[in-house]
């Protein structure tokens, strides 16, 4: 009786089970090895590598225009923001001014991406905790947001809309009207979200006080995004290191001090409203002009190191490019938010019940391809 070379029952009487890699509640191929004492979790150990595609190594043989598309496959729910991070990093090396129109389009698309990502998360959180109906309500609005993406970018998830210097092509003539319609629809549905899940007694009992993460631990584990902001750590890259003109937009950084699953839930619910607020400010003020700055056909970055961070729907994504002056990067490293957030999972889950593990995983909002890359 052995399991990965170890006994199922340890000498202290702890029971070892595997959750995943094919478990529906792990949202992908996450493999968690869990040590249990009865129903209490003693230790959680994530096993990675099931969906490793060597995107970083692959990018070393691609040109600066070509490597961007692969980042859509990392955190596929915030694909546009990943592309934006890469484009910004290349622009930093080239020292290209992005036209204001392209900047506004990028912000609008990024916030729409954040909105759709949080909507999917909201539905899946309900699903993980046993409520099936929210999933359908979430996908109803998400579908409308993805239709905007499909109309302007040509794809629903893996858009590849950002290119060094701006965006690939101009927005669709229908874009503004469609966004306004969708925003109106979404705003009227926020109350429904709260009615069906936020105020539900079963949901509250399963999330309040579960998976506590102190602010100190959030910082030491390197958590970012809503996971850290649920513990009261101010870490919004859009506020601290504004990019693409986020400094001109008004929005609030959402902070909750609870540190439990419910606090992280409330952060994301409020972030959706902030995204809508940002879109409302910009949708009528898209400046005229070019949607793309002129760049050379073959992009060559000067010798050096370039780093750019952005706020994806899950936290801080960092793109680090080392260039030796050639047409393709010498080395690329992505600092992905999910990898750091996952590292805090063991700490959060230790001492809670096995059923709470799913609630904790749901509110960290893990996307496994981003963990492995």
């Amino acid at each position, binding site marked *: 009786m052995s399991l990965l070379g170890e006994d199922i029952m340890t000498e202290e009487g702890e029971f070892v089970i595997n959750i995943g890699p094919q478990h529906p509640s792990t949202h992908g191929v996450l493999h968690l090895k869990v040590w249990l004492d009865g129903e209490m979790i003693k230790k959680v150990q994530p096993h990675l590598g099931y969906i490793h595609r060597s995107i970083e190594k692959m990018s070393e043989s*691609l040109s600066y*225009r*070509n*490597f961007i*598309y*692969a980042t859509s496959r990392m955190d596929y729910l915030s694909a546009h923001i990943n592309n934006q991070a890469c484009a910004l990093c290349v622009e930093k090396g080239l020292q290209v001014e992005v036209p204001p129109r392209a900047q506004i389009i990028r912000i609008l698309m990024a916030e729409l991406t954040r909105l759709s990502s949080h909507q999917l998360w909201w539905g899946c959180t309900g699903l993980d905790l046993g409520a099936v*109906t929210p999933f359908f309500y979430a996908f*109803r609005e998400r*579908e409308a947001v993805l*239709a905007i993406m*499909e*109309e*302007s*970018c*040509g*794809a629903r998830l*893996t858009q*590849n809309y950002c*290119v060094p210097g701006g965006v*690939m*092509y101009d927005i*669709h003539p229908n874009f503004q009207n469609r966004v306004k319609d969708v925003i109106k629809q979404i705003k009227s549905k926020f109350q*429904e979200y709260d*009615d*069906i*899940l936020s*105020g*539900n*007694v*079963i949901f*509250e009992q399963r999330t309040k006080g579960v998976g506590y993460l102190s602010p100190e631990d959030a910082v030491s584990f390197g958590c970012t995004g809503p996971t850290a902001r649920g513990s009261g750590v101010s870490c919004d890259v859009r506020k601290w290191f504004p990019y693409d003109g986020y400094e001109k937009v008004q929005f609030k950084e959402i902070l909750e001090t609870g540190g439990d699953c419910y606090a992280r839930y409330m952060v994301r619910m409020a972030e959706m409203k902030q995204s809508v607020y940002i879109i409302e400010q910009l949708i009528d003020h898209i400046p005229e002009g070019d949607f793309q700055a002129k760049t050379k056909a073959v992009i060559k970055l000067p010798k050096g190191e370039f780093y750019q961070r952005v706020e994806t729907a899950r936290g801080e994504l960092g793109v680090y490019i080392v260039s030796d002056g050639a047409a393709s990067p010498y080395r690329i490293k992505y600092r992905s938010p999910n990898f750091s957030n996952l590292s805090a999972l063991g700490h959060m889950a230790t001492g809670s019940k096995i059923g709470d593990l799913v609630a904790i995983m749901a509110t960290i909002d893990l996307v496994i391809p981003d963990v492995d890359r």
Partner: protein
Amino acid sequence: MFLKEYFGTIFRSVRSLLKGMKLTGYYFTHPKEIHTEEYPDNRATLQMFDRFKGEVVMPHDDNNEHRCTGCQACEIACPNGTIKIITKQELQPDGKKKKAIDTFVYHLELCTMCNLCVVACPSDAIVMAQTFEHSVYDKKQLKKVLNKPGSKIMEGVE
């Protein structure tokens, strides 16, 4: 005091459940607000967005002429090696030889629909089509030749 709190909790809990049930009940009694798309029954009327990236195609006009000069810009722009262009030397009427495409091979199974080839093309020879039902039984069927047999390059395209 304890009893008041006890029954208060029960009351609040039941109310929160009823609030949720009211919402689901509303949609149950209003089937017109339910959003579903009846694919594949609506195949005949289904209209994709004009920018939707389904697959790369090479448009030909009525005279079986395309716009591809065989410059291989798309082949260089492709990150996955999806496109392979085999060129040939074609004899012009005035006796000069000119580069032209023999076969434009497109591997749909490798394509990620990133649109970089279409953007890179200097003569607008390839575009994205809105088809999306690509499933076949044999992988070989996904290897496509985009230029039609016997096709020529259009007059005036350099």
